């Protein structure tokens, strides 16, 4: 009986508040828009049964999504932004993780905490902090003009560059931590052996360190890539009106256009887009676990 309650309560909770809502997104994605509250005509009535459902099934919203090139552009541009931002995060995060793993042992817990600390502070505040830095009269432009490097302020805020900076900044800990834990386990004598056998420092790094930290690199990249794809806060605060990302499009369809069926269809497609990276990530984690055992 006790065991039953233990399983039953969280199970029912998740079905009611995760699975069913999700099914409703699917259902509304297949509905027509209507000017009412709620603003959609449900396309599916349980009483009518599955056959009726299939008969009146309507992929109109999805066809519409493929016809309007705004959505195509939003998908492609989200993918592009996520790939570029993940690459930058990797290039910046790897040296930091490497230096942490090479730091004296007694420093490491403190360094770890310094990496994690910003992660606990509000995401919104960390994105906001960059608004004051990147704006035309912001600190960065003031500094650059003071040094004489530029004479006119650079326009950074409300461009894709600002979005990249925001993503790298907020997701950097997600990249550093898995790479750090892979590098910390790395046996230093392997690199010494490679160097003794005639490798230059660089080729020892390239041929030994990088391959041995591969699982960390892959895990970190997915941890940045997956949430970036559906990101809303960063593009809407730091990006411009031409910054297209699916998360932002979904938000605007929902809150500004009040087109719930299209918003739901966008959600379904965003999810389909995420399935591949999530499966790949899962496989990488499993491989890592097997390697550890």
């Amino acid at each position, binding site marked *: 009986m006790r065991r039953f309650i233990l*399983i039953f309560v969280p*199970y029912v909770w998740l079905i009611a508040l995760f699975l069913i809502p999700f099914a409703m997104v699917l259902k509304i994605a297949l509905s027509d828009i209507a000017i009412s509250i709620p603003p959609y005509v449900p396309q599916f009535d349980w009483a009518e049964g599955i056959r009726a459902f299939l008969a009146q099934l309507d992929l109109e919203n999805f066809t519409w999504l493929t016809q309007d090139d705004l959505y195509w552009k939003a998908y492609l541009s989200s993918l592009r932004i996520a790939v570029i931002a993940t690459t930058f995060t990797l290039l910046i995060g790897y*040296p930091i993780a490497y230096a942490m793993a090479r730091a004296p042992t007694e420093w490491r817990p403190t360094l770890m*905490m310094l990496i994690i600390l*910003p992660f*606990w502070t509000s995401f919104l505040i960390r994105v906001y902090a960059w608004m004051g830095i990147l704006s035309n009269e912001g*600190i960065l432009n003031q500094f650059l003009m003071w040094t004489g490097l530029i004479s006119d302020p650079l326009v950074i805020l409300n461009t894709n560059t600002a979005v990249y900076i925001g993503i790298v900044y907020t997701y950097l800990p997600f990249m550093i931590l898995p790479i750090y834990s892979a590098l910390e386990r790395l046996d230093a004598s392997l690199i010494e052996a490679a160097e003794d056998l005639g490798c230059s420092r660089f080729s020892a790094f390239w041929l030994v360190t990088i391959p041995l930290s591969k699982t960390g690199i892959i895990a970190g990249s997915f941890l940045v890539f997956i949430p970036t794809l559906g990101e*809303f806060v960063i593009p809407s605060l730091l990006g411009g009106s031409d910054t297209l990302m699916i998360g932002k499009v979904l938000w605007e369809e929902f809150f500004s256009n009040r087109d719930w069926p299209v918003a*739901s269809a966008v959600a379904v497609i965003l999810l389909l887009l995420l399935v591949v990276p999530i499966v790949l990530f899962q496989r990488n984690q499993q491989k890592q676990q097997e390697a550890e055992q």
Partner: protein
Amino acid sequence: MTRMSWFNTVSLTLGFAFLYIPIVILVIYSFNESKLVTVWAGFSTKWYGELLRNDAFLNAAWVTIKVAVASSTFATVLGTMAAYVMVRGGRFFGRTLFSGMIYAPLVMPEVITGLSLLLLFIGIGLDRGVLTIILAHTTFSMCYVSVVVSSRLVTFDRSIEEAALDLGCTPSEAFRLVTLPIIAPAVISGWLLAFTLSLDDLVIASFTSGPAATTLPIKIFSAVRLGVSPEINALSTIMIAIVATGVITTSLISKRQVIRQRREEQEAERS
């Protein structure tokens, strides 16, 4: 290996500068006299005063704290139960579905979670307000709690629990007197994680809140959309100070506990 190379020192310095300079600048400008955030006009704490007189922000802060305390507590109870089921539950009907539902919200984009919950609340005719935000936050943060707690349960030595049962404990006594104290650090960090997730959440709260209930992130977001304002800097500084104090205190406490535990273990071995 004890001395840092030149390259490593530089990358650590630059890395931490990149992580902390924006926050430091934000804090410095919260003490700026001028309304213009980018022009320094002397030290002043007037924006903190303005903030304390701003009822809208204070109300939002109060709603946020209520939601965070309630949802993280529910999430901790449900998440610990779920973790227990996952690690100890053995086989039961729909186990794969269950673990899928635990892990899926971790990778689900917030916009989708928010949208789906909103559709549910409208579908069942529940008025959007504090209650719906609590339900939404409990659902996504219980998954984080269960991941944290189950990672502790996996490494847990089961024979201690069995010993308690052999010595005459009832199962619930064994859980209360043996299992719970051992997994307590994980349960507490799960609660803290759920609490900060709730405090921080903008997207899911925006979807699930009604006009009656506005949380602090929603308030901050709508203010910030119009541009930078020193009042928001002051508010951010207060929030950063609270979080930093909390994180540093808990990590110091847990560090001291680890040291004490290690010393006790050593003494036990010696005697």
